[in-house]
């Protein structure tokens, strides 16, 4: 009997674990180690952050789902990986610390035959002074990265609405809280959902709304922008984004590295080197992401974290980390199998794998401050990669150690993305987009790097309906309800 241990029960890890359990059946063990008792459909946190959904609407208990799937569930966080075992045993294992109330701090070792690291991002609020405390519930800004953060964000938003109703003008500043952030899409959704809610509350004219981000152009989204076919033209996402911002009367600051947050004020440096300040009454700034900080220890007890992990804390996989300057970047730099090059029984999926380099062109200010989005790994690629990795491991367990690995390169894969711009059955809108491939391939598609037959976007109510249906569909799938395998990642 072989044992697969999956670290992290989020979008990617949950997909990997549930498919592995289905494919392996009871002949082998699938173990999930994840610190939260609840699963969270993170994209809908945006709607929690504007009071249109509750925390209960976007989360559910994991234990019954894992019990149904025959998955062994440890509510714990992984601390370290011992890929060679220790002095008394050759069996590799992970060290985990319980997060169950009353058992806090209880340490356990879990042996594995195969390991998937799907621990997602550490929300690195500490990278920018004043951005947030360890829980992200900062004194000065709010976050929508977790359901609890989003509940808090909505409480603060409601306070501003009361103030505006009492005649007090409010300034909203939404975007990214550091020069190396990713996840601009979430901030984009939040700013337009706020704008929509303020309209509904009848206080839009009392609000000044501004975007601040590290993108070198509006609509970059960490993927170097995209060109979409529209009215017979291949149109840059910059045009669409600027148009929407203008239509909804939202001003913007781009190419900005937020370097300090104080009460009611952010300090930033621009790509031009210029320094600036912006005041706010309400601010949601996405933190930069890092790996969660797992340690790796060799058999003799030496620290081999740098062997397994890149300096940003993400797990090294089969990517080309030596691509160098932007001019040398190739689609083939991107990983295909997500296998760790040193330990063949360790894989990573979702945000936890170390990308070879950004997708957007790297830039820095004349002062040498890097200001460019880091690469996003959104829900669809995270799910697809999770499933491919689970498939590879299941094949190796059932067919033998040399079974070929399945591939899922982001340079060969598209993504469908629906960015909400306001919730409402008949007055909601969302930008429905597809992008193919996620990582541009300028050799295959000279110029735009993407196939414009499969890269499109449009804003409207239909997009909102799709976003709302996807909310229910993905929660249905994650709960492993009837027909769950038929719902694509």
């Amino acid at each position, binding site marked *: 009997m072989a044992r697969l241990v999956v670290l992290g029960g989020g979008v990617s890890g949950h997909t990997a674990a549930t498919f592995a359990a289905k494919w392996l059946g009871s002949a082998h063990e699938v173990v999930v180690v994840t610190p939260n008792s609840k699963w969270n459909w993170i994209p809908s946190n945006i709607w929690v952050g504007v009071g249109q959904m509750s925390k209960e609407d976007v989360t559910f208990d994991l234990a019954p789902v894992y019990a149904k799937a025959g998955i062994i569930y440890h509510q714990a966080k992984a601390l370290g990986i011992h890929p060679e075992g220790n002095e008394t045993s050759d069996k590799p294992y992970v060290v985990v610390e319980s997060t169950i109330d009353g058992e806090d701090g209880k340490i356990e070792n879990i042996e594995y035959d195969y390991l998937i690291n799907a621990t997602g991002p550490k929300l690195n609020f500490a990278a920018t002074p004043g951005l947030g405390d360890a829980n992200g519930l900062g004194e000065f800004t709010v976050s929508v990265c977790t359901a609890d953060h989003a509940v808090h964000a909505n409480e603060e938003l409601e306070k501003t609405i009361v103030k505006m109703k009492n005649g007090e003008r409010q300034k909203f500043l939404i975007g990214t809280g550091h020069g190396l952030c990713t996840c601009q899409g979430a901030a984009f959704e939040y700013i337009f959902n706020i704008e929509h809610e303020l309209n509904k509350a009848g206080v839009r004219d009392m609000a000044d709304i501004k975007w601040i981000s590290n993108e070198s152009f509006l609509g970059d989204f960490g993927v170097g922008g995209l060109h979409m076919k529209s009215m017979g033209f291949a149109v840059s996402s910059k045009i669409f984004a600027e*148009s929407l*911002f203008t239509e909804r009367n939202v001003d913007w600051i781009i190419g900005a590295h937020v370097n300090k947050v104080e009460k009611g004020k952010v300090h930033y440096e621009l790509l031009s080197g210029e320094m600036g300040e912006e005041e706010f009454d309400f601010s949601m700034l996405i933190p930069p992401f890092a790996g969660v900080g797992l340690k790796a220890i060799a058999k003799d007890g030496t620290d081999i974290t740098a062997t397994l992990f890149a300096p940003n804390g993400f797990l090294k996989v089969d990517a080309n980390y030596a691509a160098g300057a932007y001019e040398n970047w190739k689609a083939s730099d991107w990983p295909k199998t997500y296998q760790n090059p040193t330990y063949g029984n360790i894989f990573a999926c979702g945000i936890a794998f170390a990308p070879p380099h950004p997708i957007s062109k790297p830039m820095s200010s004349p002062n040498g401050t890097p200001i460019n989005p880091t690469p996003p790994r959104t829900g669809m690629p995270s799910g697809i990669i999770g499933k491919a990795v689970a498939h590879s491991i299941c094949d190796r367990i059932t067919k033998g150690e040399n079974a070929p690995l399945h591939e899922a390169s982001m340079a060969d894969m598209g993504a469908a993305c629906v960015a909400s711009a306001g919730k409402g059955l008949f007055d909601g809108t969302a930008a429905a987009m597809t992008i193919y491939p996620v990582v541009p391939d300028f050799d295959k598609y000279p110029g735009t790097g993407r196939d414009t037959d499969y890269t499109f976007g449009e804003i409207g109510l239909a997009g909102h309906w799709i976003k709302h249906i996807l909310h229910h569909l993905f929660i249905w799938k994650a709960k492993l309800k009837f027909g769950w395998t038929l719902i694509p990642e």
Partner: protein
Amino acid sequence: MSKKVESNIKAYGNNFTTMTPGPLAIAMRTCKIWQLIRFVVINIKMIIVVNKSH
């Protein structure tokens, strides 16, 4: 309505060079019949991309 969106443009500001939707384009975004058609079209396009990616 078009005038309202155009009035958001600030001469020589950030948004002076962008395109802005007119009243028809804005109305079509929430026109239920048109959006039902778009719903079908977008779903088909997304399914094609999803299938290409798996």
